[in-house]
């Protein structure tokens, strides 16, 4: 998968970014401004909940991710196999819920390419929609 842009907000005073957007900066009583941040980051920590609260199925994988753009967010994931603290992950929002998935070498290369120019952009968007299709298919299969 490839980086999705995620809605965030930025503090005009300290530049701090938070996800999802908040009215006020956590560090100042100052109104935040709308911003976006790329859905790429690192695992800060993760856990698997074996007796999740009502409305969730066990095992429930939860991770705290730090995005490259600076904000941290909570995510669900399909699995935690192969995941370590510090692992690079991509983050996508589906129906307002964030999901992480492990970013392999190919994903990182595509990301790099995407940044490199317009040609890359086209390939990236194709692979992005492909990845989304696969993801949606997987989620549907599970529910």
């Amino acid at each position, binding site marked *: 998968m490839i980086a999705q842009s995620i809605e965030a907000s930025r503090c005009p005073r300290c530049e701090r970014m*938070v996800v999802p957007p908040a009215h006020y900066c956590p560090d100042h009583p100052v109104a935040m401004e709308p911003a976006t941040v790329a859905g790429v980051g690192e695992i800060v920590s*993760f856990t698997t909940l074996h007796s999740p609260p009502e409305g969730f199925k066990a095992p429930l994988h939860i991770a*705290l991710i730090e995005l490259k753009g600076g904000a*941290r967010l909570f995510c*669900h994931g399909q699995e935690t196999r192969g995941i370590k603290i510090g692992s690079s992950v991509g983050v996508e929002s589906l129906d307002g819920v964030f999901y992480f998935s492990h970013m392999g070498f190919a994903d990182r290369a595509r990301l790099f390419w995407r940044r490199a120019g317009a040609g890359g952009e086209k390939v990236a968007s194709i692979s992005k929609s492909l990845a989304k299709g696969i993801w949606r298919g997987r989620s549907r299969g599970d529910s």
Partner: protein
Amino acid sequence: MNNVWIAGAGMTRFGRRDETLPDLIAEAGLAALLDAGIERPDALVVAAMNPEEFTGEGNYGSLINTHLGLAQVPTVRVETATSSGMAAVYAGFADIAAGLHRTVLVVGGEKMSHIPTPRVSEIIGRSIDPHERTYGTTMPALAGLVTRAAMQSRGLTLREMAQVAVKNHANGARNPLAHFREPVTIEAVMESRLVADPLRLFHCCPISDGAAAVVLTAEPAAVRIAGIGQGTDTMAVRYRSDLTSFRATQAAAQAAYKMAGFGPARVELAELHDAFSPFELISLEDTGLIPVGKAGRATLDGETALDGRLPVNTSGGLKARGHPLAATGIAQTVEICWQLRGMAEGRQVQARVGLAQSIGGLATNNWVALLEARA
């Protein structure tokens, strides 16, 4: 600022109790008043985290003062999530320190065991940021995240965390008021079922009912509150830059030490908030009682055991004494009081200064109190 003394202490047995919460609070409150030799305090502070949802009753300050036969005594109810009890001690302390009243009864308790466990978890979980809660985060889930991060960055080991539970169960076995009075082995802890990987069932405190109370006075008594401090942090865990130490404990400890005019070197006994075993290790370091990175080793070496250099959770802690939410901070104060007065039969240690630390929510609103025996 007036000196504030603890003239009386009392608590109920913690665990599954059939009595109502007002009855439990009355049992603890009247025991503390009797201990202090006072029938009618000048003011009353009541701590209860969520009696509205656990018991369906409200206007809790008035409910309790009427139930106690103290309806004419000015009463406030205090709440800072799971640290509500210590917040109530602080409110009573501030009242006397400011010279508004001469005697204050501080009582707190919770009654939860009559409610199914998932519902209890859900109600306690409301102290988590609403957005983070939509991801299914519960207190054990967040503690699991903290624990994994602490294992990675601070080198905490599963064995060190398990030893905290083993030690606290051993202490609880000596406390007639504790919820759990059976020792556990390190193997039993390490093989108990996974709750929130890497946290296991025996790393987590139980759901307990109970109440505790202290009587604070301006008149000198056996134990003085030398310092008390509050520390806070964001409700949203995603807003914090560090998962593996609690800013709220560090700030509370600094404030308490500053007020007391001494540092951690004088502390000889501590009651720490081990709602999850790794939290005792993190708290030992956040309060400065043990240098950063050394708490696990010190625990394995027995330094924090009953016969160690710095006994921690002689009551059994939240793990074994139990954790009736708003009772806990007061119960910690009661335990240190009894230790400093030589009344901790079966688990008595030699100490003149004790520290109590209480965590509210996922360390959003924490307290540290320093108690000193009268010279």
